[in-house]
């Protein structure tokens, strides 16, 4: 027998369809064969796609590596001032307007501070795009690694210490192998977040077609140029990519939950 839906369920359905699914579908409904052909034959689209993959992947690796450092503090040094500062700043890039993040990176690594690296410092380079993506995605990596570190039975680490491991050795030999899929989850999460980043990338990395342009800024440029069909096709491509990433993340998360990692 079917149960009668509650009022909350009845209200949720139209709200979800109107505000979440409908905008996504609007992109797909506006796809045209001409737009698709224009987009896939545009070398700038493919260069922005290539830039997106390279920079988002670089940002994901950087963010996960730094998050592993945070994970070490989270496991062994939670009373330290460094941990408290890092923990506080983990949330800052989430709350900060990303234009501010981009400006902060521009001032920190731009012409004035890093003039020795080039006429614009590190700004408006592929590295700048990577750093902008890294800056906004690192908190996700740090949170993922920290929550996975929390799942590890502390007694396992204590035993490893009694068997001669220093904290560093125990982290590398025991914690890192147990993090396993969390490292991949962290990378996928950061990659997805990087894929969606626009403001910080534009501010620090710029939007130079064929050089620092990424998919998000490619869509923006096409809208600005009035080429809506091409913008819609590129957006549909982004949606497809995002859905694939979300599915990968779901599979990884489910596998983690099924296996569990605390010993019985």
């Amino acid at each position, binding site marked *: 027998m079917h149960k009668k839906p509650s009022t909350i369920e009845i209200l949720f359905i139209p709200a979800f369809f109107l505000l979440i699914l409908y905008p996504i579908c609007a992109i797909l409904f506006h796809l045209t064969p001409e737009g698709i052909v224009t987009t896939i034959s545009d070398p700038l689209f493919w260069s922005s796609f290539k830039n997106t993959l390279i920079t988002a992947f670089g940002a994901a690796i950087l963010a996960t590596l730094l998050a592993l450092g945070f994970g070490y503090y989270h496991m062994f040094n939670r009373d330290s001032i460094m941990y408290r500062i890092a923990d506080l700043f983990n949330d800052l890039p989430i709350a900060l307007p990303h234009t501010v993040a981009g400006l902060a990176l521009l001032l920190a690594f731009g012409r004035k501070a890093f003039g020795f690296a080039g006429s614009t410092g590190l700004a408006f380079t592929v590295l700048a795009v990577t750093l902008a993506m890294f800056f906004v995605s690192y908190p996700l990596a740090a949170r993922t690694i920290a929550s996975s570190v929390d799942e590890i*039975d502390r*007694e*396992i680490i*204590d*035993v*490893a*210490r*009694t*068997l*001669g*491991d*220093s904290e560093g*050795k125990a982290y590398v*030999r*025991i914690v890192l*192998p*147990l993090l*396993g899929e969390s490292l991949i989850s962290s990378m996928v999460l950061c990659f997805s977040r990087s894929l969606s980043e626009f403001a910080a990338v534009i501010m620090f990395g710029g939007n130079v077609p064929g050089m620092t342009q990424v998919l998000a800024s490619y869509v923006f440029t096409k809208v600005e140029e009035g080429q809506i069909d091409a913008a819609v096709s590129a957006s549909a491509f982004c949606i497809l990519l995002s859905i694939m990433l979300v599915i990968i993340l779901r599979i990884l998360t489910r596998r983690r939950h099924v296996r569990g*990692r605390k*010993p*019985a």
Partner: protein
Amino acid sequence: MFAVENLHKSFSDKKVLQGCSFSIPDKEIRVLIGRNGVGKSTLLKIITGILYPDSGDVLLNQRSLLRDPTEKRRVGYVPQSSALFPHLTIRDNVAYALRNGRGKEEEIDTILAHLDLHEYEHAYPYQLSGGYRARVALGRALFSNPAIMLLDEPLTEVDHAKKTEMLPEFKKILQELSIPVLYITHDPREAALIGTSYMAMDANGVTQVNSAEEAFSFIQ
């Protein structure tokens, strides 16, 4: 000879250890009995070096261990959960200390055979029963060539019948080590079967008693 002298430890306002003192000669298996929350685990964590006491000392052969980090203390530790490394095979678990220059490679097989683990040497911890996990945890601690052994309710996951079978074997192995052994349990039968001496722990500290029964009646 292992000794704990006037150990104090507090967490915020809660005093957990207040002047805890005792000593354990070599070859002795001292069973420690106490209610939950009385400070047994804190005591073990101080001996292993995971926690530091507010005051007092931990001595092994009249030398203070407090200045040494955990990895230098040569304390064999078998926790309640076994705490096996889940990503390593049984053989690699037992031989873990080899990575830090402890134990001898040729002793791995002896320990595996001694603890009836050869059949499972390529298995992973999740494939083993509680009794076999306890054996692996003991073997891993033995292999590291410890100067003192601490066992914190190592057979919690094992049923009574199996315990009765395993305890004389464990006792023999522990006595062959000729080092001080501190064994915590809540099970009177287990205490009687494994111990060579007994002490009871309450909020006032530890008191040496003559038998397992006396220890359990002391803490009632």
